[in-house]
């Protein structure tokens, strides 16, 4: 078959619009999801058993099921339960925020645990009160340690966001599929869509590697 990538030039505006929707959705869910993830990560180390069980259930549920079904559940079921209409964007944002919260909470939890026993000994030997131990020693190290994995989580979310096309939200993937169907040029259009995702995600994964190396070196002291 003949490939003709020039067909794409007519649709640059539409693709840009789709990318803009993808970007907005991803950024919003990164901010909200990371905040939830941080709180849930803390709650999972809490003294309260109820809090631990509740947050563990949330995390395991969202990590143990396909994101697609989470999305469908929020999209089809939440409006029935709440009795209000939800826009496509709102459903997508809720589902992806909850997903992001679950995966980042694991990141925060393991980085909190990685702050070693010896650091705690040093805190005691210096007479630091609990509040200072948490605020000045544990949290800053946990956040530094979490940084590369958090960036990976953001990349995952960016990729998973393409699922919202399945519930009709006009993101990059949805618009790409529409163009592909209308022009009957799936190879050109879908390849272009894949390349757009790649061009954004690839440099970020390189950045993760670099940051990881620097953090590990710094925290190795």
């Amino acid at each position: 078959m003949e490939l003709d990538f020039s067909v794409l030039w007519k649709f640059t505006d539409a693709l840009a619009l789709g990318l803009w929707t993808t970007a907005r959705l991803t950024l919003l869910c990164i901010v909200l999801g990371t905040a939830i993830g941080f709180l849930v990560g803390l709650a999972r180390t809490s003294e309260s058993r109820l809090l631990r069980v509740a947050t563990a259930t949330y995390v395991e549920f969202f990590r143990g099921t396909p994101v697609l079904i989470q999305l469908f559940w929020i999209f089809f079921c939440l409006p029935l339960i709440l009795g209000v209409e939800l826009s496509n964007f709102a459903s997508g944002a809720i589902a992806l925020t909850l997903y992001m919260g679950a995966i980042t909470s694991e990141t925060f939890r393991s980085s909190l645990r990685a702050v070693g026993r010896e650091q705690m000994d040093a805190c005691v030997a210096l007479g630091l009160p609990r509040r200072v131990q948490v605020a000045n020693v544990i949290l800053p190290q946990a956040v530094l340690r979490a940084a590369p994995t958090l960036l990976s989580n953001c990349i995952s979310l960016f990729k998973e966001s393409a699922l919202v096309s399945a519930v009709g939200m006009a993101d990059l993937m949805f618009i790409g599929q529409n163009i592909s169907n209308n022009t009957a040029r799936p190879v050109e259009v879908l390849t272009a869509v894949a390349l757009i995702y790649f061009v954004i995600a690839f440099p970020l994964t390189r950045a993760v590697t670099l940051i990881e190396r620097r953090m590990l070196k710094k925290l190795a002291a």
Partner: protein
Amino acid sequence: MDYSLDIGAVTRNLGPLFEGLLVTVELTVAANLIGIVAGFGVALLVLARNPVLRLPAMLFVEFFRCTPAIVQVVWFFYCVPMLFNVFLDPITMGVLALGLNLTAFNAEAYRANIQAVPGEHRDAGIALGLSPAQRVLHIILPQALRASVPVLLTNGIGTFQQSALVAIVGVQDLMYQGKLLATETYRPIETFTVVALFYLAISFPVSQFVGWMERRRGIAAR
């Protein structure tokens, strides 16, 4: 809410859901077979000194890791028949799409673990007079493969979850049957919840097992 739960709508229709689950499990197992074997081959290519072998393998891995799985699946279903003029049944297509995706992720796991074998072990192998092939076979690989098992399992269960994507291109897996049932019965809450629990019932034990394995390794490494 003006919606009364009727779990019977789902329990009366478990048959199709189980059929879907069977397809999902088939897809997962077949994709994992591809991923575990081909992933190792690709990892060796990525580590090759010869750039003619290395660069295409790296590109393959990075491309699959840096694009959404749904884009890969849709691309595969639409473009492979057009480009190569081959027409396979949807399940085979699904297996190939998921298998290639998993191959890329597993290759990365193998590569990382091969490179994580300490240089001292290679030195010790040289000091003991082992040939390069013997060093790879008897020192590097056994350690790297064992270290890779938890990640391979995690990736494998990830593919189990990702396999829901093939419902979008019409493969009649668990997700597909669930969506069909939800539409036919107008019972989305019950149906999607049960379908989600199906997925969870398989993912959760595996992820717990991986966690247990990693904790045990952590203790052994101390």
